[in-house]
C-alpha cells in the first residue's frame, strides 16, 4: 500500500495487463506491495504466498519476470517495462 513520503515514480512494471509505478530503489516485491498486491505465488499444494523473509532467504516470493521463472520478487530490482506473472503450481 502507498504510504507517506514516497519518492517519485521512475517507470512502470506490468502485471495482468495493468501498470504499476516503480519508485527509485524498488524491488519488484516492494513495487507490487505499494499497490496492495501481496499474493505472488501458489505453493506446491496451491496455497497463496507472498513476501515472507524479505531478504532473499526463504524463496517464498518467486515470480515470473519476462517469461523467466523463479525470480525472487524481494531481491530483484524493478526495471521499467518488465512483465510480471504470478506463477501457478
Amino acid at each position, binding site marked *: 500500500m502507498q504510504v507517506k513520503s514516497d519518492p517519485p515514480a521512475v517507470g512502470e512494471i506490468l502485471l495482468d495487463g495493468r501498470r504499476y509505478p516503480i519508485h527509485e530503489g*524498488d524491488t519488484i516485491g516492494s513495487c507490487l506491495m505499494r499497490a496492495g498486491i501481496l499474493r505472488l505465488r501458489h*505453493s506446491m499444494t496451491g496455497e497463496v504466498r507472498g513476501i515472507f523473509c524479505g531478504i532473499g532467504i526463504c524463496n*517464498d516470493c518467486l515470480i515470473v519476470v519476462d517469461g523467466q521463472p523463479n525470480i525472487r520478487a524481494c531481491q530483484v530490482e524493478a526495471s521499467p517495462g518488465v512483465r510480471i506473472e504470478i506463477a501457478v503450481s
Partner: protein
Amino acid sequence: MAGRARLVVVGAGPAGLTSAAEASARGMQVTVVDEGAVLGGQFFRARQDSWAEGSPRRLGLGDADAQILLRTTVVDAPTDGVLATWSANRRIEYIEYDWLVLATGAYDRPVPIPGWTLPGVLTAGGAHALAKTNGVVPGKRMLVAGSGPFILAVADVLVARGCSVTTLEATPFTMQIAGLKAVVRDPELLRQAAGYMGRLAVRRATPRYGWTVTRIIGNERVESAIVQRVDIEWRPVPGSEKALQVDGVCLGFGFVPRLDLAQLLGCSVAYQADSSDYRLQTNAHMRTTRERIFAAGEVTGVAGVRVAHVEGRLAGLSVAREAGLVTAAEFELRQRDLSARLGKLRRAAEWIRVAFRPRPALWSLAQPPTVVCRCEDVTLEAAERALCANSADPLSVKVATRIGMGLCQGRICSPYLIEWLRAKHGYRPAAAGRPWSVRPPISPVPIGDLASHTDRRR
C-alpha cells in the same frame, strides 16, 4: 600487483566491511561479495547516509581499496581457495582467495504458527527493510509480535509510515530486568530504547508484555489474528484469546546466524542450547576451525551491530597478521584493545540475549495442519506421522517427509524442526555440529548456469 595476499570477504554488512577496510589498509588485495544492491548489509541498507561506526560512509571503502561485487551470491566452494559466485549479469564466476572472512550475518528466526504462510505475514526484518528502504508496508493495521528490542524498531518504522500498530512482546516485563540492567548502564542503548518507547507511546503502540499471536486468519491474505496472553514460559493462557482485525503481521522472535557457506566450507558450528541456535565457532582472533578462514559478526552469534564491527576489525587485523602485514608487537597491542572492547559489548549483548531468548513453548504454537516447511508444504501432522516409523532426529524426519529439501534448503524450517524435536520428542542436539547437511548450490541458480559450473567442477 601480482603476489599480493588476497582476502575475500563474504557479506558487506558492518562486520564484513570493517574487516575489508582493516585488511585493505594493511595492503591486502580485498574483494567483497554481497547479494545486496548496496553496501552495508541488512543494518545499513536503508541507512546509506549514516556515519555510525561500521557504516559504509564512515569506512569510505572505495574501488581503490577493494573490488566490490554487489548483487552477487556465493553458491559453492568447489575447491580450497576458490568460491563460485552467481550474478544475473556475469552468471557463474570464480574468485580465488588466500584468506576468507565469513560475515554472512543472520536472519529472522522462523516460527511456524497457524496462518503464518498467508500473504501479509512477514518476518520483522523483512517488514522493516521494506518500510525503511522502499517506504511500503503490507497493510494499514499492523500486528508486530515477537520478543526482543528489534520489534520496537519495526513498530517504530511502521508507525512512522502511518500504520496503526499493535506491539506484543512475549517476554513478561518482570523477566526483562536483566535486559534493563544492560540498557541503563549503556547510554547508547538507553537513548535508543527511550526514543522507541516515546514514539510508540505517542502513537498508542506501546508493547503489551506477556502477549503473543497464536493464530493468523485470512483467505487470500491476512484479515485478522488471535492474540493471547502467555505465561513466563510463553505458554498461551487458555481463555485469554482476543481477535484483532489486521491487514499484516510481523513476526520477530530474534535472529539466527546464516551458516550455509560456513558449513559448506567445513567450519565447525556449535549449538547454543539456551538461545536455541547454532553459531560459527571462532577463537580469540576470529579464526574458524579451518585454516585461513575467519568470521565476524552475527554469524558467530547474534550480538548486534556494535559487536559486529569490532569483530570485523579484529578479523581483518588477524588476517593481515597471518599474511605478515602487521608486526607481532602492533598486533598484540591492537588485539588487546579490540578484545577489551569486545568483552564489554558482548556482555551487554548477553544480557539482552538471555532476557529475550525463545522459550520452549514457542515450538508448540504450530497446530497439526500448520505448514512447517514452506517450500515443500509439509505439515506438522506429516512430521508427527513420520516419527511413528523413524527416530526423532532431524535427518530422519527430513528424509521421510521432504522437510527442508526445497529451495530454501532448510533455512526456514530447520531451526523449528530441531527445536520442536527437542521440546516435544526428547531430541538432544549435540554441542558441536549441526544435524543438517548443506549442499551446493547454496542459493538457487538457473539450471543452464549450473550446468556450466558442473563442467568446471569435474
